[in-house]
């Protein structure tokens, strides 16, 4: 059990998928909190690309960080395996690469992944939410972000796995469509799903933009009695839909905590206090103890599991939305 010692100077970069999105800003707040707590005299940079240029931008920032000799890059990966060569190059230059929110699928170029939740269990949670909404049987469709979003794809895959269980035999996954994480595309896709499957019971959207747009679409068209919306969403955006029954249940984790934990992990590794070996444990400030373990979804890769996440419903959403 390593108790991380603060005060060492190391420059670090927090690299989100792109700038201008609330949850990434929350992660930054968490990281800044940890940065202050650990008394790191170095710099914590929050830099990221634009939405249109996310992939190339992330690769560019990763490469630049290596050139600058940053101690660590904390990456919410939006480039899939395309970032692996530059991440490896960064590692070779002595920069630690800690991913959070979304890992490098192949695990190459990555020291450790700080997982917000267990990617296997998130599938079960989504399946469970669908189960409870549908009352055990009915049709479900998925409205995802883009076909390239690695974490969404992993979650959907794990949900498809979970659905094989006997408990969910009554649930039929009829379609997977993509809303490109844009409000208007997601909105139109959600309606097209309803038109395509007249018996659809729930739209599962593992993305905050998609779930909000679907809920709005169902509400606008007066379809909330027929088709429910669920998935991953922000309480502040979803509160009204949860209260009026359009989206009775959805889940999410705390991005502030995720940023906080990620910072601790990256700091430990960049200062050499953590070696990043399997089984290593450390105390991450206010959040308690964590252990580096094998990532079950990506053989050969390591992760730190933050967990748990919260399922929101009528009872707790209003409090969380404040």
């Amino acid at each position: 059990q390593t108790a991380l010692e603060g005060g060492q100077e190391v420059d670090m970069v927090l690299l989100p998928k792109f700038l201008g999105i609330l949850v990434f800003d929350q992660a930054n707040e968490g990281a800044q909190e940890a940065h202050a707590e650990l008394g790191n005299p170095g710099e914590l940079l929050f830099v990221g690309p634009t939405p249109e240029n996310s992939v190339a931008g992330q690769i560019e920032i990763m490469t630049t960080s290596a050139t600058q000799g940053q101690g660590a890059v904390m990456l919410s990966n939006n480039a899939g395996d395309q970032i692996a060569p530059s991440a490896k190059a960064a590692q070779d230059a002595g920069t630690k690469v800690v991913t959070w929110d979304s890992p490098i699928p192949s695990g190459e170029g990555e020291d450790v992944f700080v997982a917000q939740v267990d990617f296997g269990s998130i599938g079960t949670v989504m399946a469970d939410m669908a189960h409870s909404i549908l009352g055990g049987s009915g049709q479900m469709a998925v409205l995802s972000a883009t076909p390239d979003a690695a974490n969404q794809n992993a979650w959907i895959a794990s949900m498809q796995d979970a659905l094989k269980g006997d408990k969910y035999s009554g649930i039929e996954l009829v379609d997977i469509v993509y809303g490109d994480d844009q409000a208007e595309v997601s909105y139109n896709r959600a309606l097209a799903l309803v038109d395509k499957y007249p018996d659809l019971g729930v739209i599962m959207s593992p993305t905050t933009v998609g779930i909000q747009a679907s809920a709005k679409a169902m509400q606008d068209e007066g379809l909330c009695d027929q088709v429910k919306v669920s998935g991953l969403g922000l309480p502040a955006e979803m509160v009204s839909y949860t209260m009026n029954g359009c989206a009775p249940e959805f889940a999410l984790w705390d991005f502030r905590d995720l940023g906080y934990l990620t910072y601790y992990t990256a700091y430990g590794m960049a200062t050499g206090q953590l070696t990043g070996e399997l089984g290593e444990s450390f105390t991450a400030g206010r959040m308690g103890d964590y252990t580096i373990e094998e990532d079950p979804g990506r053989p050969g890769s390591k992760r730190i599991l933050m967990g748990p996440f919260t399922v929101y419903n009528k009872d707790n959403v209003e409090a969380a939305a404040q």
Partner: protein
Amino acid sequence: MTRLSSFATGLRSWEGFLFAALLVILAVNAALTPEFLTVANQINLFQLSIEKVIVALVMTFIIINAEIDLSVGAMMGLSACAFGWMFQNGVDARLACLVCLGIGIAGGALNGYFIAAMALPSLVVTLATLIGFRGLARVLVEDRGITDFPDWFDALGQAPMLGPLPFALIAFGVLFVFLYVLLQKTGFGRRTYVIGTNRDVADFAGIDSRRHKFILFVASGLISAFAGLLYAARVGAVRGDVALGFELDIITIVLLGGVSIFGGKGSLTGTLLSILIVLNLRNGMALMNITGHIQTGVIGLLLIGSVLAPRLRLPRFNRAAKPKEVSP
């Protein structure tokens, strides 16, 4: 006397202006960030955008020809995804590369057919193929990311080949020299300018502008496919969104280089200078931790400023979009 005056106008020309701008950027970067002038960084800054700048060279021809090709990014994506798909389905990677280049030629020929033979506006045709090629890339890889290419392929994009220089950079150098001679010194280049200046005049002088345009679009497709492969090799993986939106960056580079959007004006020297400016500027900003929208915004300002500044100060600048003289 003529020599001397053309040298003088050369200094006051657009290229001269770009060159001065480049020097300023280099000096500022070198002064502000110690890592800037390292060989590794200089190679990196090229490497990071090498595919775009390669395509920008051909785009220079196309825009001088008074056309535009919006489908280059999508073609890069299609070629990379086709490679990934074939590789995943057990096709030999070498053969897959050849097939991808073939796809580039076919896609370019499709554009060329509609633009040259059917005489549809290239903006419209390539807007449609931008959507279509991207769609085909999606069809091939769906929601998968494909990786684990053969080592030689990855090395092509990532390992140094000649001294510290990677293959793509060498390819860029060779291509630049070849295209420079082609555009600036040969009859093909002259015809590119003439057709861009006034297509009817070219046709009436016995120049087959349709054939010329067709060739250019095929070349554009081919080079885009090649660049798509380079991209796949550099990042060692492909996905449906490879090179998404690259077309606008590429066009920005070409326009900043002084190539007139109305055709007939510009040069590869200008494009090269513009490449150096954009890359060094981006790199300098990145090293100063200025990224994201501010970077994009600065390039945007530069683009407008580059057209405005010479017009405000030196009205007789040789810039592309000089106001048209009314008929004498």
